[in-house]
């Protein structure tokens, strides 16, 4: 049962990689990259999970408890921030591409470039 979360992250990773490889539309590629990020974040959080564990907050009530590992959570927080930044930057680039070529489809972009050149 506890392994399900790993399978979920691997399935999401596969979907993301498949999306990048198979999708021509640049926006869909960006979303696929975002799915990969999410898959990896789920994977990392799952690594620190302890069955029946407590939130890792040390206090007088929980001086000794079965804490989950807090470090993967801290790493994921950083990774999420970086992922959102990359997603935002990618979106800006796509807006520029759409303004310049009028499309996000590589074939149409190539046609437009050939006409311009």
């Amino acid at each position, binding site marked *: 049962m506890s392994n399900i979360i790993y399978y979920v992250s691997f399935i999401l990773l596969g979907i993301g*990689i498949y999306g*990048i490889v198979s999708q021509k539309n*640049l926006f869909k*590629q*960006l979303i696929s*990259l975002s799915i*990969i*990020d999410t898959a*990896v974040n789920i*994977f*990392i959080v799952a*690594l620190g999970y302890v069955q029946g564990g407590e939130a890792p907050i040390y206090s007088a009530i929980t001086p000794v408890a079965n804490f989950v590992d807090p*470090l*993967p959570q801290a*790493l994921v927080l*950083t*990774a999420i921030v*970086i992922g959102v*930044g*990359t997603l935002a*930057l*990618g979106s800006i*680039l*796509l807006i*520029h*591409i759409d303004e*310049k*070529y009028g499309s996000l489809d590589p074939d149409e*972009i190539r046609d437009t470039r050939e006409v311009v050149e």
Partner: protein
Amino acid sequence: MIALLIAIPLAFAFASIPHERLGRYFLPFVALFNLVCLFFFMQPEQILEIGKWPAAYGIVLVLDSVSYPFLIFVNLLILLMSLSATLENRYGTLMLVLTAAVNGIILTGDFFNSFVFLEIISVIAYIVAAHKDNALGAFKYLIFGGIGGTMYLIGAVSVYIKAGTLNMAYASFITDPLAVPIICIFFLITFLVELKVLPLGLWAPDVYSNGSSFTPVALGSIVTVSLVYLFSRIFLNIFDLPSPELVGILAMVSIIFAELGALKQKNLGRALSFATISGISTVVAALSIQETEVVSAAYFYLFNDVISKFILFTLSAYLGKRGFKSNKTAGIAFTFASLSVVGFPMFAGFWAKYYLLKALFQVDSYALPAVILIAVVIEAGYLIRWNIELWYKDEEESVLEHGKDTENEEGIESIEEIDDFVPFGAQVVTLILALTLVVIGFMPNLIHDQTMNIANNVLDFRPYFDLILRGGM
């Protein structure tokens, strides 16, 4: 003290945000400050435990005999780029952050910290790649780089799970024989993307040929050198490279395809981009052999390649459709750099190739020398062709054409301004670098002694671990 190399560029980057144009004026002073600190106030073999946390639990910055020369080289390149490139105001702040990040990635002794610096470098690289309206090239890089960054994160977290720490030195004690190769494969994918080894480096030609005077220099020289350091640290110092033969074969295929790609290009920027892929693939192929002499020669090769490509890319960005007839200084620097890339005697490139071939023969490696020799022939073909074309170009005609192309009705005035097409700073910097290639051509030991020292230290894990251990545990 060593934290200043990261903190000062970052502080000036923040300071430049309200006054955007100050960033590009801060940049040379910050790079100079870093160099002065490195030469006069910092010596190798010291570590800084951030927040006084022992190495196994906290982040450490490590200045050792390997990171020290790399830091000097990278900061020198940043200083020269700040003097030679035409930086727009908004890029000054970015370059300051890039300075902090490349110094950080070289100094850090922590896997997750190196991931953060890697991502900072990547985000800046995407923005820099989009310069000159090159959003499509930048997006391609973002997709490749995004996957590479994710792989690095998985690798870093896997290290934590297996070693119980993110510290690089302690991570080398992972005993699970299956875990180490898998972790290394994740890291390796990142490096193949970022070091532009084909096919994962296919993003590079579109990015480097955007016509900017600083994009290829920032990404192809500064970022590349810092990533070669990280590659060496991880695969030569901490872990063993997974299936080095396969990496070597991949890099050799990359060299051949990149050279053939460069040969058929009609655009100088794209030709140089492919040449850069070939150069760095040669370095990766040589590093994968993991023998002291070969690794030393690989660093010499990297030094020559980075300096030569710095000159070539900078001048090609300013050339436009013009030649060297009206700017012989730029022409001389360009030709010297081309000859050094090819490996012509009396230039640093000759010794780079000589040391590499000699070292490869010593370890009975014959495939890579054969590939290098084939690459030299192709390289000589297209670089000599470009030099002849640029030296004998009929400038009046090409500038008039350029004027028509860009709907500039004052094309004839452009001919009068032709003498100034390469800014003074760029002329001086490229000429100094070209003369450096000649000086090293006559005195190769100036660099060879240093690269031997780096190679000896990078292949010996013990001094690195002792340094970390001295910090406490």
